[in-house]
């Protein structure tokens, strides 16, 4: 049991107790395979259907537009590779700050003969509209721009980008994994604006790991990634992960309820303002601060301090944060997001991400700031004492 204060909600979130309770019967006597036609199977099928309705309702989609997957990564792969497989190799645009689960399949498509164009972002992480216009002139077949970034938290003006892309008739996809439960999402409205698909994940919104969905306009023809028994209208074979999908469904209902969402947003915005006032007082640079951001995310760097070191010291002090995206936490690589924002490497090296959640309160923020202040003071001291520096660096690697 660890007692750290958890400030890493963009990596994953604690499972909501109500969600866990809803899941447990499906790990007990409601264990049937939804494809079975007997009573055990029908109970499981009904549970999957209800989960699908819940997910659809949470994002303003129709239940027939929901394809369940094993998570956000699979949803992103399914859209990009699945749509590409139905098209002649053409051009594909993805933004410069996409999650690895968009970037990597896009790279894969490039190896299969697609031309991959990277959409530039400005210093706040916002898609560069002029660059987009220039790339759209190349008649792309596929475009993928994330709704909200996992590291900086900055939100794209998706309807405007969709409007811009519409004349090309490209399929436009958005990775909405980080936006779900933090912003109101209305797929009907986005779809009307020209967005054709969204990726979602359960474990970023108080749901369980191992479930996600691709919300997709039925005009988009997809080739399945997983061939087999024909589940999910033949678009995603494999026995449905019933308990986890039940959890996903309820988590969507709870996280996306408009009242709950607006209250949560207000609370998180005020907590983050408290946090960032303290950070600025410590001399921190907050990234993408001028852009519209997710209410819970603060991505910053302290001058002269290494991000990895700060994160390790914060861990010792009892605060769990990230120095980059957990999903691509290979050591030593600077954040490609900050690179795209034009942040110089010496500043990017200091990047620390705090992502808040329902369990956090202002006392924890104050405690965090105090701990951070002590780290700044300690390291300002050791910086003046060169002999101590390598030893500390070694220790932090040892912890890794």
């Amino acid at each position, binding site marked *: 049991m*660890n007692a750290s204060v958890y400030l890493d909600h963009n990596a994953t979130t604690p499972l909501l107790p109500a969600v866990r309770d809803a899941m447990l019967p499906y*790990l007990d006597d409601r264990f049937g395979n939804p494809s079975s036609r007997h009573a055990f*199977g029908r109970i499981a099928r009904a549970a999957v259907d209800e989960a699908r309705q819940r997910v659809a309702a949470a994002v303003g989609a129709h239940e027939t537009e929901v394809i369940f997957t094993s998570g*956000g990564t699979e949803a992103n792969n399914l859209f990009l590779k699945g749509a590409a497989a139905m098209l002649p190799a053409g051009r594909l645009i993805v933004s410069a700050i996409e999650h690895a689960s968009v970037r990597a399949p896009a790279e894969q498509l490039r190896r299969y003969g697609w031309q991959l164009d990277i959409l530039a972002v400005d210093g706040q992480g916002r898609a560069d509209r002029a660059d987009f216009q220039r790339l759209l002139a190349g008649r792309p077949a596929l475009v993928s721009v994330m709704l909200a970034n996992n590291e900086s938290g900055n939100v794209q003006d998706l309807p405007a980008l969709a409007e811009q892309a519409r004349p090309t008739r490209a399929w436009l996809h958005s990775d909405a994994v980080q936006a779900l439960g933090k912003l109101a999402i209305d797929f009907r409205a986005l779809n009307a604006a020209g967005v054709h698909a969204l990726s979602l994940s359960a474990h970023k919104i108080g749901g369980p790991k191992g479930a996600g969905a691709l919300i997709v306009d039925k005009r988009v023809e997809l080739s399945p990634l997983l*061939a087999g028994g024909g589940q999910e209208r033949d678009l995603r074979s*494999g026995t449905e992960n019933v308990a986890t999908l039940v959890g996903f469904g309820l988590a969507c209902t709870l996280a996306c309820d408009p009242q709950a969402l607006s209250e949560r947003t207000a609370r998180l915005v005020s907590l983050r303002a408290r946090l960032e006032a303290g950070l600025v007082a410590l001399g921190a640079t907050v990234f993408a601060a001028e852009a519209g951001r997710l209410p819970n995310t603060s991505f910053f760097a302290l001058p002269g301090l290494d991000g990895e070191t700060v994160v390790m010291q914060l861990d010792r002090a009892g605060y769990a944060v990230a120095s980059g*995206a957990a999903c691509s936490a290979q050591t030593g690589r600077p954040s490609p997001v900050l690179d795209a924002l034009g942040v110089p490497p010496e500043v990017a090296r200091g990047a620390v991400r705090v992502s808040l959640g329902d369990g956090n309160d202002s006392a924890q923020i104050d405690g965090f700031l105090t701990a951070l202040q002590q780290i700044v003071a300690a390291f300002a001291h050791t910086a003046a004492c060169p002999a101590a520096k390598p030893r500390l660096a070694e220790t932090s690697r040892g912890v890794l």
Partner: protein
Amino acid sequence: MKLPIYLDYSATTPVDPRVAEKMIPWLSEHFGNPASRSHPYGWEAEKAVEEARERVAALVNADAKEIVWTSGATESNNLALKGAAHFYAASKGRHILTVATEHKAVLDTVKELERQGFEATYLMPQQNGLITVEQFQAALRPDTVIASVMAVNNEIGVIQPIAELGELCRANGTLFHVDAAQAAGKMPLDLARLNVDLMSFSAHKAYGPKGIGALYVRRKPRVRLEPQMHGGGHERGLRSGTLPTHQIVGMGEAFRLAREEMGSEIERIRALRDKLLKGISDIEEVYVNGDMEQRVAHNLNVSFNFVEGESLIMAIKDIAVSSGSACTSASLEPSYVLRALGRSDELAHSSIRFTLGRFTTEEEIDYTIDLLHAKIAKLRDLSPLWEMYKEGIDLSTVQWAAH
């Protein structure tokens, strides 16, 4: 005794309560992302994932480094076949060898590869559901890049001669993939001795949770795959995506229990299965599908001639069984597995798969035997075909008129 009685363990199994108990902490306080490298929430999750990996490896005598997590056996089969076929096509060739009675996750994947320019051979099994070593050897070609044969068939439970087939593949320089979704925990599997390069596993067929599986990828000699799920580089780049800790812990515990208890469990279940077979063998015109010797202990697949399959399922609602594989049961097509064994459409349609498991009791089997006797007699009483058969008319010579 609680009704309905569950006799469909090959479709899915209940999660063993001991497994569920191990999973629950990972659905509560231990919620970290195993990929988080900067705090204890992540470290403890990663540790749990690695312990589970050891346990899955131990059941099949493999090294933990040879186990890759997937979302289930369907994904494992897709990853094994597409990943290996694409990686080795240029160096080895574009021929794939498999069997007509494989699971859809293999057959449909091979069909997809055919559309991409691979060539496939689908071996037809003998009437007992087994392929012969000679037949397999004759079909291997110098350009056979991969062969895929399931260890245990999901519908009829027959066990293919994996050890012998593996030796032939090794000698031919062909990769050998085995879908062991229905075999793990149901029969011994020793990957240190078997010449198997890739093996697919599922948790929910072995008292673990749904939504988690694994692919064994041999390291010595090293087998390489082209990843099919791209992203953050989890699973050493072979399969990206946040690892579902609770499900992985569940699979690990399920496989640990299987290793400890398989020996005695198989014998208990075999006795019950044999009792069921004996109990219904006095019913006329009952045909067992698939070999009874080379067969897992928990499976009994029988056709009740002159009984319509759907009516039978309805009549025996008190027992939950399958009239084909669960994964294809939404269609009314007769089982392609039974058709491949040379069964007529009528016999294929009237087939019932009974699969027993850890929680099956003798009382349930007794009830099932009595129920089958009563219901089959009743259905046949209503059947004109049965009446004609009893009158000695050879139905295969009857010319049916359309009207």
